[in-house]
């Protein structure tokens, strides 16, 4: 049944800057753009204030030096580069480390209430890979505090606009529960707007603007076991590809070491790293703290060699080394995977994470309230009395839209910007916990700033009728799926098959033959997705929404698989059983993904810009020798 749709002009609105996504990066970008005078529209798939950022638990990394006076941006930068195994776009890592404290302090002036130190400053907690306690936090609900603060700041700007214009939405408007399916360009290849539909009504509309900021988050919904919400279908990644902008480092996908493993319906939901930062330990079925067996060579001198030393570190971090439970996430996830594989896992296929023997019950309930609540409500487990069962879950994509470090502008599409998880480069091959929220704020602000500046100097955007008609036809195609008869495909089935493929064949441990098989299956799924068919009408129709999101997930999955097959080494969030070692020759190599004309993805190898000397000087020569390629060491 093809729905009757009026064939007439699609409604258009004119704005200066459009922000796609209303998580931390999108809202921070919108605030900046509006404060710089740009009329700004924000479009998000969920209700305003529900974005995936609310799920962030641990904190915001920033070297404010409140908890340890020795902390500086240089040390934060160094930790970030080590965590990313030196693949990070170093200038982004530098800007991030330098600007993060200001971005956190600014939140307080907007009403945020972080946990405090005894002298009244913002409290900072330990986290994996961070040399000093660095994460500003609110219990284990930091993401909620961040999103609410930004949301309330936006409301306060709207109140200002109301006072001057009588209209709350004259300078900054949130289009909630709307999806963008295409970035539209003008005749000169410049950004001119976005094609959208309202999820409630199914109504199409076009927002025209010379500058668009992508802030859509990640890609986790392409995997079966994930901590990510339904929104994470790689929309911004795909929008950039389809607009002609390349993605970088897509092979690097972070599997968070601790997701819930039971019951099945919550499998993958995150168990915050703060559990380990605050003293939680990992044990296998034999009761052994197995992480001591998995400290890799490059980190040997920086982590405790005995349980006694690790335990002393919580009280006396200056004279002891940190326990190996706080290694970067990729190391911990691989170790858990190996323990389970060796038959030393927990009853439901994870390992044990225990705080119950490490802290008094009231301390656990105060410091980890959401975790206490989550396990009690969803798994009937009292974490103050028994260990949790945890295992790796797809959590974050380090890869993303290739952007200019300073401006967040994409590569080759004038007027298109990207910030937050959808942008690539900042975290290299592996992101440290706490560096995501700070990334959102630092680069969200930069993207908003530069988008507003760009828009101020640009001509009014004009989208051609043809582009609108093409986007409209593409969005309506699933309603014609019935014409394929028995060959018509169910979007839910295709999605499940894709998730299984990515989980099994391009997951935490990868092999050449499996990735090649994944690419074949993805190509086949792409064919079948052309025949996807949905029932009903356009009003709040989840089947139709999924059918449209499938295009994005398939594109992004192909990027991940193709780049992973190409990179013949193991590094950070890319682990190959057939190439188990990190290969220094790959250090200065980035892989760019572009959408090919005939469909599918093309790869290109590019050399990265040499790391600036004063930044290299922050490391010992011996350490650099473990990471840099031969020709980099010579020069």
């Amino acid at each position, binding site marked *: 049944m093809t729905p009757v749709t009026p064939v007439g002009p699609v409604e258009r609105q004119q704005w200066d800057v459009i922000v796609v996504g209303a998580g931390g990066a999108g809202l921070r970008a919108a605030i900046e753009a509006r404060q710089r005078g740009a009329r700004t529209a924000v479009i998000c798939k969920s209700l305003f204030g529900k974005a995936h950022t609310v799920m962030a638990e641990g904190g915001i990394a920033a070297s404010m030096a409140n908890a340890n006076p020795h902390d500086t941006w240089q040390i934060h930068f160094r930790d970030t580069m080590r965590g990313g195994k030196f693949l990070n776009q170093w200038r982004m890592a530098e800007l991030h480390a330098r600007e993060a404290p200001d971005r956190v302090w600014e939140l*307080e002036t907007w009403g945020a209430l972080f946990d405090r130190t005894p002298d009244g400053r913002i409290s900072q907690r330990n986290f994996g890979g961070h040399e000093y306690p660095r994460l500003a936090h609110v219990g284990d609900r930091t993401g909620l505090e961040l999103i609410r603060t930004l949301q309330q700041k936006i409301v306060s700007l709207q109140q200002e606009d109301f006072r001057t214009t009588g209209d709350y939405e004259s300078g900054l408007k949130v289009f909630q529960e709307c999806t963008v399916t295409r970035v539209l360009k003008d005749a000169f290849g410049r950004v001119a707007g976005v094609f959208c539909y309202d999820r409630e009504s199914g109504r199409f509309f076009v927002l025209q603007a010379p500058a668009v900021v992508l802030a859509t988050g990640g890609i986790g919904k392409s995997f079966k076991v994930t901590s990510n919400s339904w929104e994470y279908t790689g929309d911004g990644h795909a929008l950039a590809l389809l607009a002609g902008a390349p993605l970088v480092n897509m092979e690097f996908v972070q599997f968070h070491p601790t997701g819930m493993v039971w019951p099945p319906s919550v499998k993958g939901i995150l168990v915050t790293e703060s559990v380990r930062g605050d003293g939680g330990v990992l044990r296998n079925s034999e009761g052994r703290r197995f992480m001591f067996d998995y400290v890799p060579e490059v980190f040997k001198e920086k982590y405790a060699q005995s349980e006694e030393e690790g335990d002393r570190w919580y009280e006396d971090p200056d004279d002891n080394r940190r326990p190996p439970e706080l290694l970067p996430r990729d190391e911990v996830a691989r170790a858990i995977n190996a323990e389970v594989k060796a038959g030393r896992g927990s009853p439901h296929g994870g390992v044990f994470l225990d705080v119950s023997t490490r802290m008094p019950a009231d301390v656990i309930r105060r410091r980890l309230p959401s975790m206490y609540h989550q396990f009690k409500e969803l798994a009937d487990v009292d974490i103050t009395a028994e260990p949790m069962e945890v295992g790796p879950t797809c959590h974050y994509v380090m890869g993303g839209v290739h952007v200019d470090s300073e401006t967040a502008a994409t590569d080759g599409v004038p007027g298109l910007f990207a910030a937050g998880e959808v942008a690539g480069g900042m975290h290299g091959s592996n992101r440290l916990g706490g560096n995501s929220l700070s990334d959102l704020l630092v680069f969200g602000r930069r993207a908003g700033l530069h988008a507003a500046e760009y828009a101020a100097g640009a001509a009014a955007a004009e989208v051609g009728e043809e582009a609108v008609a093409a986007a409209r036809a593409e969005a309506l195609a699933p309603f014609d799926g019935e014409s394929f008869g028995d060959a018509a495909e169910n979007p839910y089935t295709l999605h499940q098959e894709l998730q299984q493929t990515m989980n099994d064949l391009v997951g935490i441990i990868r092999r050449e033959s499996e990735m090649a098989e994944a690419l074949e299956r993805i190509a086949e799924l792409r064919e079948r997705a052309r025949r996807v068919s949905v029932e009903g009408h356009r009003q709040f129709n989840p089947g139709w929404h999924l059918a449209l999101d499938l295009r994005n997930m398939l594109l992004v999955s192909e990027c991940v698989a193709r780049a992973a097959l190409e990179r013949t080494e193991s590094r950070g969030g890319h682990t190959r059983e057939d190439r188990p070692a990190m290969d220094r020759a790959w250090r200065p190599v980035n892989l760019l993904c572009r959408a090919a004309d005939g469909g599918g993805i093309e790869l290109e190898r590019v050399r990265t810009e040499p790391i600036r000397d004063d930044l290299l000087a922050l490391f010992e020569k011996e350490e650099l020798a473990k990471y840099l390629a031969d020709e980099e060491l010579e020069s």
Partner: protein
Amino acid sequence: MSTYDARFRIWRGDADGGGLTDYTVEVHDGEVVLDIVHRLQATQAPDLAVRWNCKAGKCGSCSAEINGRPRLLCMTRMSVFARDETVTITPMRAFPVIRDLVTDVSFNYAKAREIPAFVPPAGLAPGEYRMKQEDVDRSQEFRKCIECFLCQNTCHVVRDHEENKPVFAGPRFLMRIAELDMHPLDAAEESGLDRRRTAQDDHGLGYCNITKCCTEVCPEGIAITDNALIPMKERVVDRRYDPVVWLGNRIRRRNGA
């Protein structure tokens, strides 16, 4: 434990009307009601509309009424129901239906805009804020709010009284005023803004007669009535007579004596 077939009745329809539809659907060990709604979408009712996001009780999207009780679909375990019990899911009653379980919650966003924002203290630069933990504890409790709007939905001031909506902000946003009023560095007063007075005069605090329905349905366990609304009423009463507070104080005094 095992798999069984459960009976569900779900409200299907839109602004023009609708009714309960019966479904029989498989339930597995450890599942929550939202899992069952998703299974229905994937197998029997692909266009069944439901709002959800995090599926971990953190975003407050999947609010609805289960057997008449306002709850989050993602935090209601199937194990709380008997296997032969029919589980009825209806949309939140206080808000207009868009479709099936999805309601128009724009009332709440309109109210949010009417609450004056945090006023930063003059003379303190970013990074210079100093606050004691015990002084931020109370406002932090209110900031745990996930904006599921179950309290707004259940509050009898608006649940069956559409006419009160224009003058009543509802528990969530009265609590927001309390949060700002108790913020140690909020400079509203210095700027000439009396938050307590606006709570009473502009946002309908006086309509609340502390039946604690909001507190009962809060999935975050925030003591909305005791910690936000009653203290606000008590602060207001410094300046103004409120019969409920007067009565409440007398009762408490009698009980305490």
